[in-house]
């Protein structure tokens, strides 16, 4: 088989698997830059996936579903934010238990509700979608996918605004930040909410726009892959985006390779994200751009 079609096959398989990682990844990047090692991103995605599926079923409209999903994720983010950046509870404990909680709640509700999600159709961007190789992969997608563009612009814009600097300050040196009059915990909570917003879209995409159904624990560890992506991306925006693609392709290959006529160890492919993240850490060691106060609580004296 010839190369272009092979590449196209790989891309078309990979991009849709990258999308949820990208959405959540952008959120997690912001949350971590602001100093929260946010484990509950998994829970955010799962919660959103269910809420979106439910909303779409009840209303018959994917958009309502999306909104419900975002709402659910925001709620989780809100709880997490207030527990760890108002009450100063251990972020890791809160994150982990929120994941347990969400898994429990979604399974529980799933067993008492019936879901029937309306199908949506893909947008095909004129001209661009006719490009060789990339055209089909990038420009024939459900409309939510294109929310990535404004989201990226937003982040890029915010980074160049005071808000961006304040978020970084909150993540790098909360004490000094506080002295210069930044409300560190507020910034961190806001970053978490933003993470919730993004992860919410990612989760909704999974259930409503990609699968068209919800199954128990359907995020299947994507949240943790996202965390790995932020690490592998060296806590840099471009890095994180790149990492999400790499991991998306790792999953895509699993689907594309047989089609092209190759095989690879499924376990190995599934392990790549974590291996890569570990490798990059091992290589960079302490030299990575990790936010200095990542995961550090901050309680100002007033």
């Amino acid at each position, binding site marked *: 088989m010839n190369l272009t079609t092979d590449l196209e096959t790989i891309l078309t398989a990979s991009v849709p698997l990258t999308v949820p990682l990208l959405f959540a990844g952008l959120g997690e990047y912001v949350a971590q830059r602001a100093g929260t090692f946010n484990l509950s991103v998994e829970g955010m995605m799962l919660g959103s996936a269910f809420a979106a599926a439910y909303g779409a079923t009840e209303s018959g409209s994917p958009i309502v579903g999306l909104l419900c999903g975002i709402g659910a994720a925001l709620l989780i983010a809100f709880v997490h934010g207030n527990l760890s950046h108002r009450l100063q509870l251990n972020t890791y404990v809160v994150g982990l238990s929120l994941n347990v909680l969400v898994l429990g709640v979604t399974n529980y509700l799933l067993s008492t509700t019936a879901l029937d999600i309306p199908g949506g159709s893909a947008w095909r961007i004129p001209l661009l979608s006719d490009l060789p190789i990339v055209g089909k992969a990038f420009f024939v997608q459900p409309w939510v996918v294109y929310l990535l563009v404004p989201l990226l612009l937003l982040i890029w814009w915010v980074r160049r*605004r*005071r808000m961006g600097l304040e978020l970084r*300050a909150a993540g790098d*040196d909360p004490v*000094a*930040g506080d002295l210069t*009059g930044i409300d560190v915990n507020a910034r961190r909570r806001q970053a978490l909410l933003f993470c919730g917003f993004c992860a919410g879209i990612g989760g909704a995409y999974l259930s409503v726009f990609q699968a068209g159904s919800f199954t128990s624990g359907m995020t299947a560890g994507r949240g943790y892959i996202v965390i790995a992506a932020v690490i592998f991306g060296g806590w840099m925006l471009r890095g994180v985006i790149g990492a999400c693609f790499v991991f998306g392709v790792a999953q895509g290959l699993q689907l594309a390779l047989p089609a092209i006529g190759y095989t690879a160890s499924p376990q190995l492919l599934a392990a790549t994200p974590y291996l890569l993240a570990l490798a990059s850490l091992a290589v960079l060691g302490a030299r990575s751009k990790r936010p200095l106060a990542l995961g550090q609580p901050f309680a*100002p*004296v007033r």
Partner: protein
Amino acid sequence: MVPALRMAGITKHFNGVPACLDVDLEVAPGEIHGLLGQNGAGKSTLMNILLGLVRPDRGEVALAGEPAVIRDPNAARALGVRMVHQHYSLIPTLSVWENVVLSSEGRVDRDRTIGQIEEVSERFGLEVSPRAMVGDLSVGEQQRVELVTCLIDRPRLLVLDEPTAVLTRQESRSLFTMLRGLVEQEDCSVILISHNLAEITAVSNRATVMRGGRVVSRVSPKETPVAELARHMIGRDLPGPAQADVAAAIGAGTAAEGEGSRQARPAAADEAPVLSIVGATATSDGTRALDSLDLEIRAGEIVGVAGVEGNGQQWLSALLAGSLSLQEGEVRVHGKRVAVGRPGSTRKAGVGVVPEDRKTSGCILDMSVADNLALAGLKSLSRAGVVSRRKLHSLAERLVDDFDIAVASVDQPMRSLSGGNQQKVVLAREMSAQPAVLVLAQPTRGLDVGAVADLHERMRQAAASGVAVLLISSDLNEIMQLSDRIAVIYRGRIQGELARAEADPERLGLLMGGVSA
């Protein structure tokens, strides 16, 4: 006329412990107002309240006659009140200009900000590089950045909290000239916090002295004799022998020939050194930490290491604490080679270290005083791998008495002790191990005069009892006060050594500046 700042009846408690009680403070327009007081007097707290960083329990603040409610630094900034903090408030991972942006109003505009920075820095002769990453700057540079940050939006009131603690004399001098210029041209008032009476006397028009959270006196330093100021600060007449120490500690007079300072001990050159460091060279993540450094100390001798902050002092003490390994050179104690760089290696060889940052590397804040006193000798306190609580306590009790450490019980957590007493605990622990060499790094930094006097006395006793004492300090008076020999460290090497007799501030200053004498 209307005072630039008027704080009235300010009261603040931390967990029921008073930090400020009914403090009244008045600063006239265009004056440099000194704020004096020993540690824990409440100076920083008072200023933090002014900046809105701490909420007072009670009290009013008025700026230029206008009652002001200041909830956070931004509010303060809006009212033209800025502060250079005791511990700097810069974000290390951001560039200088980004830090400036952070602590000023308006939208982020790199080029405009950089313009402003350059303008201010040349107006006040504070040169800073706007694009540099703050984390890469030296302490002095960082302070300049802080100043620029404050000055950029022409404050009406500028607060400096112990600005000179980390500066060389030269740097301090230029700072003060700059401040004078500021108050004269820019009609801005300055509040200057310091322990150092000499400085206050030199620059400030009026001063307020605090003790135990209260204002004890308002004076005009120029007219008031230093000794009296000191008395206000400490609240008691100074113990006889300590006189000179205190004078030294608070920078009164040139302590070199202050009476009561002990005679130089004739160090017999023939006698073999207890500690000898030969050609010690080490790098720490890329940067040269020590550069073929040579140093020798004999029994009963006090050797002072003078130098500007950040010329390798912390690495020298790290080396002697056994946590820095050498690429070249060696460390010998009693002529025996020590495998430095291995945890505890130097301690085994009989070197005791009172580290610079006692909170972080001297003691364990969340453990009890008893535990902290026992740290070094745990092995001797335990049989068959089990620590005997009884022995541990008796040891602790003994040391607490010997070093009269002020504690309610040896079981109270280290964290709850005052800085001076924490220092005493560390000292007690190190001396209780009967070291051959005792290293003290910046031992009196941030201690009040009473504590300083006591500490100096104990160092002398140690030396008298034949311990070889190495005193690393950036306080020249202290160095000249105590040492038999003074070695000046510069860029990780010993720039030169002076016997106590031939040492005077100017020559030392030259050496510290890298000029060989």
